[in-house]
């Protein structure tokens, strides 16, 4: 390999590290924002204003299915990043489609939960506890929705442009984003649902 090619490849690697690191900083600041929602939820969890409490509202079966969807989608997202490293378009599209289906299943379960809570007179306007709950879980849901849009965009870009260097940097950022959403969901199902039912 001649020197020019080596230098170009090295510049690409440095750029990938810088982009990944910058996106990592963004994710950490996003997690700091979520910690504010978690703190307000923990402060307000007993402020039910005479309405229903966590124990009466949450359905752990649905939460278990949501958790499984998101965890497996994190795994398939990891497979997609391996596929992008190997420049394998077929494996990439298959695992990204699996991630898309699982993420959409998660989102539809969450929307169904919100609808049923509102129908049972436990909407976000009912108490400070429910406002904090809808803000925290809804914020995560909005992140998942944005992630799904990004996922479809990445599939389209790989289809149209192939695994170019800039496209594969975006795939790196997308996989970081998706794994971070799963980490936030771990905190969320533990603090909101499991401790809400157990305590």
């Amino acid at each position: 390999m001649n020197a020019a090619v080596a230098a170009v490849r090295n510049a690409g690697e440095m750029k990938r590290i810088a982009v990944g690191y910058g996106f990592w900083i963004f994710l950490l600041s996003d997690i700091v924002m979520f910690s504010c929602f978690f703190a307000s939820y923990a402060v307000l969890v007993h402020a039910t204003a005479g309405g229903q409490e966590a124990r009466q509202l949450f359905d752990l079966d649905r939460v278990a299915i949501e958790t499984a969807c998101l965890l497996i989608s994190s795994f398939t997202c990891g497979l997609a990043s391996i596929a992008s490293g190997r420049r394998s378009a077929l494996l990439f599209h298959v695992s990204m489609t699996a991630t898309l289906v699982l993420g959409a299943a998660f989102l539809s379960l969450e929307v169904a939960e919100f609808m049923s809570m509102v129908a049972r007179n436990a909407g976000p306007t009912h108490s400070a506890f429910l406002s904090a709950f809808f803000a925290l879980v809804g914020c995560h849901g909005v992140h998942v929705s944005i992630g799904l849009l990004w996922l479809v965009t990445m599939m389209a870009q790989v289809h149209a442009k192939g695994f170019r260097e800039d496209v594969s940097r975006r795939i790196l950022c997308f996989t970081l984003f998706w794994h971070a959403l799963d980490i936030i969901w771990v905190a969320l199902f533990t603090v909101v649902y499991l401790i809400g039912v157990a305590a």
Partner: protein
Amino acid sequence: MSEVIPVHTAAEVAPGDLPEGDNESGVLGYVIGLVLAGGLTAVSFYITRGSLFWRPSIPTALIVLAIAQMGVHLVFFLHITLGPDSTNNVLALAFGILIVFLIIAGSLWIMGNLNHNMLPMDQIMNMQR
């Protein structure tokens, strides 16, 4: 004379990337992560629903399990390691964890203290008469 230019001089690795391109072990890492995380999740749900354990201990146990599972996600999915090539990633993470801890523990502490020291609402009403 020596025209050997190292292809890989980057002393760091992007977060999420495996160090030194070991793509073959990649799938195995994700499988281990999935099994560990799934196991920890299953234990969390099991101890919440079962009547096997002393109830007051369950929230603490759940928090410990959640922190363990986040560690699994960081190591096996995000590939944040303690190796020398991801020092920057780990330092940024440590700072983020510090801020998260300050926000959550500080809010709970201050609000709990205020709540404890505040007069009951009917007495506040009486004082305003």
